[in-house]
């Protein structure tokens, strides 16, 4: 089985997000990036399938943010090939354009299975997976929690709202939008990452930006505004803790 995994970079939410002056986009200049969490699960799922059923795993990533470290870490986990799509500028392309670039890199792999995180916190509607499937001409199944390979082919566990789970047989080739791998992403020791840095070569491919009309136009981006009844607690830790305690007593939650 040939598996391709998409690894995206997303802004690290440890630092407060800023909005650009025009008010319709995130200011990514000062942001730090890390691998998208559900993509990390997609990679783990691919490695688990490789270990249990045998597979080659190729990773595809767009070249911005901290992509090199993400790829070295993937190499240390045991992937077979690392494809880095270089960009004309170092800004992440819009989902549609990104999907086109990824499809261009993934197409020649002729992967039986394409795994991608089903969501990313900087993305609207989790669109990249389905759009990528469309570009590749493959079926898409999203919100998948765990994929297993058995005698009868591949089975995916899909989560529906209300925590309803469905086990489905998957006809390959297909694109799966992964929410969670069967087990959480494994730890990669620094020594393995350092070894990967020395021995790993990236397969760099230029990402040709197709002129596309954006599917969604963002008009305004803003921080959440407190609603009428919200009380923002400010002050020192002791003051905030004291106020929380008072509220709990006032509301009769703690006596």
């Amino acid at each position: 089985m040939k598996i391709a995994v998409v690894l995206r970079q997303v802004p690290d939410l440890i630092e407060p997000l800023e909005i650009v002056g025009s008010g319709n986009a995130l200011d990514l200049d000062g942001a730090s990036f890390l691998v998208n969490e559900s993509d990390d699960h997609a990679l783990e799922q691919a490695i688990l399938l490789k270990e249990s059923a045998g597979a080659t795993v190729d990773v595809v990533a767009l070249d911005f943010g901290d992509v090199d470290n993400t790829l070295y870490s993937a190499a240390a986990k045991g992937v077979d090939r690392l494809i880095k799509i270089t960009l004309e500028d170092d800004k992440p392309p819009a989902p549609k354009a990104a999907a086109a670039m990824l499809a261009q890199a993934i197409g020649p792999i002729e992967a039986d299975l394409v795994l991608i995180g089903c969501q990313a916190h900087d993305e609207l509607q989790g669109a990249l997976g389905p759009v990528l499937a469309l570009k590749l001409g493959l079926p898409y199944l999203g919100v998948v929690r765990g994929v297993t390979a058995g005698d009868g082919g591949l089975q995916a566990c899909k989560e529906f709202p209300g925590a309803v789970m469905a086990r489905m047989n998957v006809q390959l080739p297909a694109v799966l939008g992964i929410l969670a791998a069967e087990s959480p992403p494994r730890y990669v020791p620094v020594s393995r990452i350092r070894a990967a840095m020395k021995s790993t070569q990236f397969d760099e491919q230029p990402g040709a930006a197709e002129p596309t009309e954006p599917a969604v136009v963002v008009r305004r981006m803003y921080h959440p505004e407190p609603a009428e009844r919200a009380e923002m607690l400010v002050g020192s830790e002791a003051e905030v803790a004291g106020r929380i305690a008072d509220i709990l007593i006032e509301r009769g939650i703690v006596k």
Partner: protein
Amino acid sequence: MEAFRDTFWNTPHWAEYAQYALGTLTVLIFAAGVFWRVNKWRLGRAEPGPWSLKERIVSLVRNGLFQWRLSSDPFATAMHLMIFWGMVLLAIGTAVATVDWDVTKLFFGFQFLKGVTYHAFELILDIFGVLLILGLGMAMWRRYVRRPARLATPEVPRGSLDSAYLLGILMFIAVTGFVAEGLRIATGEHIQTAWAPIGYGLAGLFAPMSVGAMKTTYQFVWWAHALAAFTFIASVPFTKAFHLISSPVNLFFKTPTPPGRLATGLEEGAAKIGDFTWRQLLQLDACTWCGKCQEACPAHATGFPLAPNNVVQRLDGLLSTAAKRNGKGNGQSNGQAMAPAETLWACCTCRACEEVCPVMIEQPRLIVDMRRHLVYQGEVDEGVQDALMNIQRYGNSFGQSGRKRAEWTKDLDVPIKDARKDEVDLLWFVGDFASFDQRLRDVTRTTARLFHQAGLDVGILQQAEQNSGNDVRRVGEEGLFELVREKNLDALGKATFRRIVTTDPHTYNTLKNEYIADGEENPAFDPAVVIHYAVLLDELLRDRKLKPLRRLAYRVTYHDPCYLGRYNGIYDAPRRVLAALGTKLVEMPRHGPNSFCCGAGGGRLWMKDTPGIEERPAEARIREALALGDVEMFVVACPKDLGMFQDAVKTVGAEDRLRVVDLAELVAEATESAVEARPELRPDLAAPGVPRPVTAEPRPERIAQATDEQQVEGD
């Protein structure tokens, strides 16, 4: 007629030859056994290390010949010294008698074992023979009557019969020796001597026998004695008795590096026996199965699946298997077989086991080497994984932005320099807990005010500081440890300072002992400039740079942090501080080198609670303090301890009886600078709905002046 030693009395001449033949065979078996053992150690890797002959010889004499490391246990010391020296003297006596008879008499025609010398010889041998029997009796009583749990180890490589055999055969040798002596004296063919009081006494018992019967019995007993002795000697390399050799050899070869400097192992950790060094394999053989480590282990005491002696003995068993299989150490191939993962993760690396081990086995090092393999395979506890990922990414285990490291200084009303830019006298390596933990920031600020009050020129590295790596290393993530060490050394290298202070004993340990590449001079600083704040506070009080204005009439107990005490030998400084403040220190039964770990060390702090344990180590420790009676404060000198024990007093429901305080808080309270040290402002004590602890109000007794009364009291 003058008394003399008639060594082969009443034995046919052929028996003498047979003795020498058997003796030769015994020596050959013994030598082959020793060769087999030493060859097993050679399955291990090389171990470079400093070579200090003097230190090694001192350790050998002190801990080998005089068994100094048993001294905390008088019963064991007496028992073991009696058995050891009893056997040594009796063995020497036999050798001397042989030389007297078959060397000097045979070849040179004279005997030295005669007259007064012979009397003294007999007396000494009788005394040591009695000591041997007493020691063996004590050992048997302890093992088979008192039966302490530590002696019942499931992983004993050769079964518990080994101990019974050893005690039994030694007792048999000693008793038959005395019986033979008694019979020899009873026949009257020797000059009867009261200089062999035991033999003389026994002779009285044999008096009713005929001389012929005595002589026949003597021959049987003599043979039994001789055969038992030869059997014992030949069996030494194949039984527990081998510790007679392996333990002193291990004491001799113990590398004289500081206990706080963990040896660098293989990058992929220890997955099989051959991944340990030869000296670690020697340690496995040196184990005497005494179980003292098990008794001292906080994880074992609180129901975790770890007994350090089991770890050692299981590995020793695997070593034998590996040696039998192919002689190249490939007998075991996965970490799981060497020790269960849950056992390895249960260790707090508190070093209590190593501290009490009479033969200086380094159990934590074995455990960390095996943890390294688990980490290399990516098999880590979820909490540990989060902490390691956070340290990789953000440089701290809290998963906070590095920019928030100095956030605690925002509300600080005293200046603190940026050591990245300004030259400072004292560089404060704050550490993750004191920087990020909300509960500890008040104490960190209190400490900062004390430094300011004492007129110290202090600076911090701000966000250039990273987790020091002490616990990262002990979790087994050597690569990450090296990474944070590189970053910290880089930041320290760019700063100008005279000394480095830290409140965290873990940080202190690694900065002092491990920020030096093996065999290289430290590029950034001399380890001697690293000090712990307890030592600094002691110094400031002694130099009157901090002056207590009130006597704190508290009855307190002090918890020795593992990485300050056992790892770095700092016990007195914090106690001098407590004395200088006027507090009355009541020691817990386990204090000083026997201190009982809070359970946070070695990365345990990051791990999820282990289901099924009896209690947390910190809770056991709080109960120990509560059992002292009227102690109102539990003083700590480690940020992690403060968090651990504040939690523990709550979970054992003792908030109204015991207050957990940091040493700096008490110093601040006594020197009147500690706004935040006041109980009413301590969030943990002043939370609504929580009854105010009865002892929480400070009870300072205003004294007229800061007088000499408050000077340092030594302990």
